[in-house]
């Protein structure tokens, strides 16, 4: 393997046949290149989808209501199902043991918010302290809504980073007053959200305050919970499904909604969706691997083929070498090493090209569903091992043939 002479010999034969070497290398290089790109993008898609889920906690169950579409117990269809504080408390009491965080919200879409001369329209959301964890909101400065804000209906607000940029223009917003529909609220915190601008263009205020200032009384718009996660993902999905179903049933009972009315009460179980998407990603990855490996196999078969031709072409030379005292093992070594070298070199070339392209193009991809396409080091390393292995296989049959060549046959004058 580390015999300089043999390397010299390999380079000599390879450089004697530049076009052949180039074409063989190209087939392997493009195989690896395609594999790397495919794997990079499958990783990118996985990242993209994951970040879609990161906007909110993945184990979130949210409850929204709409208009009934079916008559039930003497009530007509077309009735709006109004959630109340009491609906939330009923659910909270029933599932307390299973719930991790809980919140009820009352929100105004397109609330006019201004600071000094700057004005914008943002979603104003009355909420509970625990919503911070359900929404995956990160506090950048200050604090989130706390329970004392709730109990004394304080006029405080937590604004998203986008609003800070829009209205405050670099000023520190903490302890400044903003006006929501003309009413003064003191900014106590700024938050970031993995969901980006859409989520960061919100103002959080205490729920109790929102209900008072917007004359909502006991009304709430929606509620959301997160379920305590079991260690086993499948088990967690099961529990969360059961709870989601239970919540839906309970709300329908409380508000006299037909059990089969789908649009009146909607319970959205993120975990269940996540499970579906993750299994989709897993399948996608599998398909990508399959396609990539197939491409590599095509390349390797190409190398094997070429090596067979080389052996055929060099039959006489191999015969001469054997007559001069070459051991069969040294002939096998020569052919095998050449095959491994060609696959290794061109494979690494394809690998570097693929990684380079991902590195270059990856950050420029502006797509919600593809983020940071990349191939991690372990995968890159395993493709290299795959290559060495493949090169060995590609070279072995031709090498074996070469070793079987009888000098007497090879040297016979035509």
């Amino acid at each position, binding site marked *: 393997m580390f015999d300089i002479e043999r390397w010299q010999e390999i380079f000599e034969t390879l450089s004697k046949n530049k076009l052949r070497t180039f074409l063989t290398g190209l087939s392997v290089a493009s195989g690896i290149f395609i594999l790397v790109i495919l794997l990079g993008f499958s990783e990118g898609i996985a990242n993209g989808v994951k970040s879609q889920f990161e906007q909110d906690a993945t184990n979130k169950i949210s409850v929204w209501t709409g208009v009934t579409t079916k008559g039930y117990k003497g009530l007509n269809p077309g009735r709006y199902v109004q959630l109340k504080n009491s609906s939330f408390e009923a659910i909270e009491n029933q599932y307390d043991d299973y719930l991790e965080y809980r919140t009820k919200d009352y929100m105004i879409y397109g609330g006019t918010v201004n600071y000094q001369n700057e004005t914008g329209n943002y979603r104003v959301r009355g909420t509970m302290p625990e919503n911070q964890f359900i929404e995956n909101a990160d506090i950048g400065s200050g604090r989130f809504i706390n329970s004392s804000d709730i109990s004394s209906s304080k006029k405080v607000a937590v604004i998203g980073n986008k609003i800070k940029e829009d209205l405050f223009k670099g000023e520190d917003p903490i302890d400044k007053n903003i006006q929501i529909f003309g009413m003064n609220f003191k900014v106590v915190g700024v938050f970031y959200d993995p969901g980006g601008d859409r989520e960061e263009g919100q103002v959080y205020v205490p729920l109790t305050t929102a209900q008072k200032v917007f004359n909502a009384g006991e009304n709430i718009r929606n509620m959301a919970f997160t379920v305590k996660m079991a260690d086993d993902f499948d088990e967690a999905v099961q529990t969360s499904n059961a709870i989601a179903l239970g919540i839906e049933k309970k709300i329908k009972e409380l508000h006299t909604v037909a059990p089969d009315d789908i649009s009146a009460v909607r319970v959205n179980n993120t975990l269940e969706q996540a499970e579906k998407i993750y299994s989709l990603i897993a399948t996608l990855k599998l398909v990508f691997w399959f396609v990539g490996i197939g491409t590599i196999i095509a390349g390797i078969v190409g190398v094997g083929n070429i090596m067979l031709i080389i052996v055929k072409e060099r039959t006489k030379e191999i015969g*001469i070498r*054997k007559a001069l*005292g*070459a051991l069969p093992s040294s002939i096998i070594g020569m052919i095998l090493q050449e095959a491994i070298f060609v696959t290794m070199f061109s494979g690494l070339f394809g690998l570097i090209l693929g990684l380079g392209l991902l590195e270059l193009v990856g950050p420029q991809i502006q797509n919600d569903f593809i983020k940071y396409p990349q191939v991690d080091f372990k995968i890159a390393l395993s493709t290299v091992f795959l290559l060495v292995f493949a090169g060995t296989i590609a070279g072995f049959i031709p090498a074996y043939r070469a070793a079987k060549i009888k000098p007497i046959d090879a*040297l016979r*004058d035509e």
Partner: protein
Amino acid sequence: MIQIKDLHKSYHMGSNSLHVLKGINFNVKEGELVSIMGSSGSGKSTLLNILGMLDEADQGQYILDDVPIKNLNEKIAAKYRNEFLGFIFQSFNLINYKSALDNVSMPLYYKGVKRKERTERAMHYLEKVGLAQWSHHLPSELSGGQKQRVAIARALASDPKVLLADEPTGALDTKTSYEVMELIQGINDEGKTILIVTHEDDIAHMTKRIVNLKDGLIIDDSSVEQIRASAHV
């Protein structure tokens, strides 16, 4: 140096079997220069292949320098070929992408000689055949006679016990043939045992002993008065 007793060899082609060697008995002493003659199909090349361990006999005994040659596997055959034998072929059989020097040093490479020593020894033999200044030329840049001389240098390189030459002058014109024979005679004069297969009478008479083969048997084996090739050049 070489002892052969009752050597038989048959080739099987499908259902046909061809009995090529039908019991050859033949000894060669050290320092002899022997030519093996015969028409095509007489079995002379087969005999040479068996002597060269490129082929194996079906029956009989072959002893080379007191070593019985039998039941060879590839590995041992390769080792013996490298140690005991030097080959000279009709069509030279040089490796065409290697320089004359590299061709000559190849047996030494398979013997495991270090690079520096290899080059020195190869150069020494190239000088001996008078081609020192051609050492870095490819075979394609050499004439037929030069190629055969490179091949002879290569055969000598590993300092074998016996040189086996299969029609060494078959592809050369008369003048070049005599030059090559002159070289071979010179090497023999230094004591090397040499066997030459040929069907040319004049070449055969430049050796010291002619063995005549016909239909797989030796019909004549006699010493001759050696004609020096130098007289013709």
